[in-house]
C-alpha cells in the first residue's frame, strides 16, 4: 500500500482520536478528561472530511466540540465536589470487563478486518450540503420534523428536571 496523503491524514487523525479516548480513561481530573475528549471529537470531524462529508464534519465540530462539551463542562462546574474521579474499588470486575471488551472487540474485528467492498465512484463531495439539504427536506422530511419535536420535548424535559423545586429548594 503506497503511502498517500489521505492515508497519512487518516492515521494521524485516528491516532489523535484514540489517544483522546485513552486519555479519557487514564486521566484523573474530570475537566481534563473532557478536554481530552474534545481532541477526539475534532479528529472525528477530520475523519468525516476524509469521508467527503463536510457538512457532517462541521456539525460535529459545532455540536460536539462546541455545544456538548460546553454543556458537560457546565455540568461538572455545577455539580463538582471532588475534583478528581477516584478509581472504583472492584479490580475483579474491571478485569472481567476488560476481558469481555477484548472478546467483543476480537469477535467484531474478525468480522470486519477483511471486509472488502469494491469502491464505487461517488459524488458525495460535490455540493455536499446541497445534497443533504435536498435529501433532508424531500425524502426525510417527516423524520426531520419528528426530530424537531423530539428536541423540543428534550428541551422542555430538561428544563423541568433541572428546575429547582421551590419547596425542596427551601429545604436544601
Amino acid at each position: 500500500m503506497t503511502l498517500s496523503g489521505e492515508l497519512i491524514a487518516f492515521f494521524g487523525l485516528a491516532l489523535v482520536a484514540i489517544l483522546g479516548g485513552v486519555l479519557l480513561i487514564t486521566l484523573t481530573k474530570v475537566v481534563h478528561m473532557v478536554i481530552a475528549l474534545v481532541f477526539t471529537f475534532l479528529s472525528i470531524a477530520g475523519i468525516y472530511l476524509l469521508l467527503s462529508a463536510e457538512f457532517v464534519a462541521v456539525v460535529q465540530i459545532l455540536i460536539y466540540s462546541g455545544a456538548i462539551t460546553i454543556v458537560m463542562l457546565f455540568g461538572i462546574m455545577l455539580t463538582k465536589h471532588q475534583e478528581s474521579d477516584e478509581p472504583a474499588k472492584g479490580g475483579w470486575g474491571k478485569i472481567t470487563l476488560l476481558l469481555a471488551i477484548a472478546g467483543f472487540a476480537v469477535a467484531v474485528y474478525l468480522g470486519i478486518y477483511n471486509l472488502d467492498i469494491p469502491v464505487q465512484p461517488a459524488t458525495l463531495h460535490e455540493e455536499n450540503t446541497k445534497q443533504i439539504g435536498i435529501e433532508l427536506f424531500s425524502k426525510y422530511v417527516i423524520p426531520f420534523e419528528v426530530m424537531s419535536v423530539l428536541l423540543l420535548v428534550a428541551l422542555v424535559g430538561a428544563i423541568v428536571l433541572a428546575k429547582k423545586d421551590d419547596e425542596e429548594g427551601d429545604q436544601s
Partner: protein
Amino acid sequence: MMENAWLIPIFPLVTFLVLLLSGGRLRERGAYIGIICTLASFILSLLVLMERFKEPTYKITIDWLSIGGTQLKAGFEINQLNALMLVIVSLVSLLVQLYSKGYMKGEERFSTFYAYLGFFTFAMLGLVMAPNLLQLYFFWELVGVGSFLLIGFYYYKQEAKNAAKKAFIMTRIGDVGLLVGIILLFWGTGSFEYGEIFQAVQSGVISNEGLTLIAILIFIGAVGKSGQFPLHSWLPDAMEGPTPVSALIHAATMVAAGVYLVATMFPLFLASSAAMQVVAITGGFTAIFAASIALVQKDVKRVLAYSTVSQLGFMMLALGTAGYVAGVFHLMTHAFFKALLFLAAGSVIHAIHTQDIEKMGGLWGKLNWTGPLFLTGTLAISGFPLLSGFFSKDEILMAAWENGNYLLFALAVITSFLTAFYMFRLFFMIFTGESRSQVKQVKESPSIMLLPMLVLAFLAVISGYVQTPWFGTFLGEWLMEGNETLLGGNSHSEGPVWIMVMAVLVSLAGIFLAYMIYAKKKLPRSWLVQENNEFYRVLDNKYYIDEIYHFTVGYAIKGLSLFLSYIERFIVGGVVSTVTISIEGLGKIGSKLQTGQVQRYGMIAFLGLAVLLVIFAVTGGYLR
C-alpha cells in the same frame, strides 16, 4: 293420573326453592307454602294410588346419558310398593308440617325449617319413585343430606352438631356398601334397571357367591339408613333434632328407606338364602337389642328412638324370613303409630319443656287430648288386639314361624313383650302418678298440633284392617299382583292360631307388668333389676356401643391420622421446606447480585453479549 306422578316430588322442591330464595323473609308464612305444596303432593299421590288399584305398573324413562353401548336412564315408576310409599311419605310429611306450624312457633329460622322439610320430602318422594338403582342412589344421598340438615337444625347446640355429623358419617358407611353393591350389580348385569337386574339374576348371570355378596352389600346400605345393628347408634342421637323432624325422618320415612330398599331389591335377596339369613338375623338381633336398651332410657325421645330401631329390626326380620308383605305392612303401620307417638311426645315436651320422663308424671288429666292419643299409639305399637300394630306384628310372627326359624321367632316374641313393657313404662311414667314437673301451668297444645295427631291416631287404629286373618288379605294380594314369581308369591303367612293368642298374651303381660311397677307401684322398680346392677348399667349405657366405637374405630382412625400427620409434617414437610430453603438461598444469591449499580447491570448484560459473540465467532457464522 300416573303419568303426572312426576309432579309429586316437584311440589316439595318448589317449597324448598321458594323458601330458600326468599331468604327467610316469609317468616312463619313459609309454613303455608310448605303445607299447600305438600297437600298437593299428597292428593296427587292418593289419586295415583287409587288409579294403581285398577291399572298396571306405570313406568317411563328417558335416556339420560349414553356411554358407549350403555344407556343410563332417568324417569319414574309407579308400582304397588312405590304408590303405597308415596302416600305414606306425603301424608306423614303433610301432617308433620301442619304440626310443626304449632310446634316451631317463634322459632327464628322458621322458614328455613320448612325449606329443609320440603327438601327432605322431595328427596324421599324421589327415592321411592326411582325406577333404577342409580337414581335411587342419588336420592338416597339427598335424603341423607336432608336428614343431616334437620338433625343439625339447632346447630348452635354442640350435641346437635355432633349428632348431625355422627348421623351423616355412620349412614355414609352404609352408603359405601350400597354403592359398591350397585357397582358390582352393574358390573354383573350391565344395567341399573330393576326389571333387567331381576331378570339377569333369575337367569343366573351372577354366581351364587356373587349374589350373596351383592345382596349383603346392599343390605349394609339399608343397615346404615335404617339404624340396624351395628350402625344403629346414630339414630338415638339424631333425636337432638326438632321433634317433628324425628317423627318425619327418624320414625316414619327415612329410616324406612332401608326397609324399602330391601323390599325393592327383594327378588335379589330371595335368590340368595345366605343373604336372607343375614337380613333376618340382623333384624332379629337389632329388634331385641334395641328393645332391651329402651327399657332403661330416661329420655322420652330416646326411648322412642330405640323403639324405632327395634321395630325396624322387626321389619328386617320379616323381610329376611320371606315375609315381604309382613315387612311392608309393618312399615306402613309403624309409620303411622310411630309418627303419632313422636308427635304426642313432642306435644308433651311442648307442654312441660323437658324430655326426662323422671320429671314428668300425672299429666293424664292435664293433657286431655295428648294423653289418649299417646295411649292409642302405645297400644298400637304394643300389639294390643284389634289395633294396627297387632295385625302387622302378627303377620311378622307368622312369617318367622312359617319360615321355620324358631330361634328368630322366639326373639320376636320376647321383643314384643319388651316392647309392650317399655312403651307402657313410658306411658305410665309420663301420665300417671305424682307430678314431678317444675312447670305448674300445663297447657294443652294448640289444635294445629292436635289435628295431625288425630289423623294419625285414626290411621293407627284402622290401618291394620287392610290385611287381617279375618277380613281378607287385601294388601298382600294387591302387593303380590303380577309379581308372584319375583316376590315368592306369599301374600299371607299362615300359622297356628296359638301364635296370635300368645302374641296377645305376651303384650298384655308386658302391659300388666309395666302397670304393676310404674302405675300401681305394687312391685318395686328394682323388682326386675337393681338400678346400680351391672346389667342395668350396661343397658343404660346402650351396651357401651358408642364407647366401643370410640375406643376401637375412633382410636384406630385417630392413630392412623396421627401417623399420617407425622408423615405429612416431617417427610412431606421436610421435602417442601428443603425446596423452599434452597429456592430461598438461590433468591438470596440473586438479590446479592442486585446491587442497584447500573454500571454493574450494564457490565453483566454486556458480558452476556460478549460471550454470545465470542461463541458465535469461534464456532460458526460468517467465518465458515
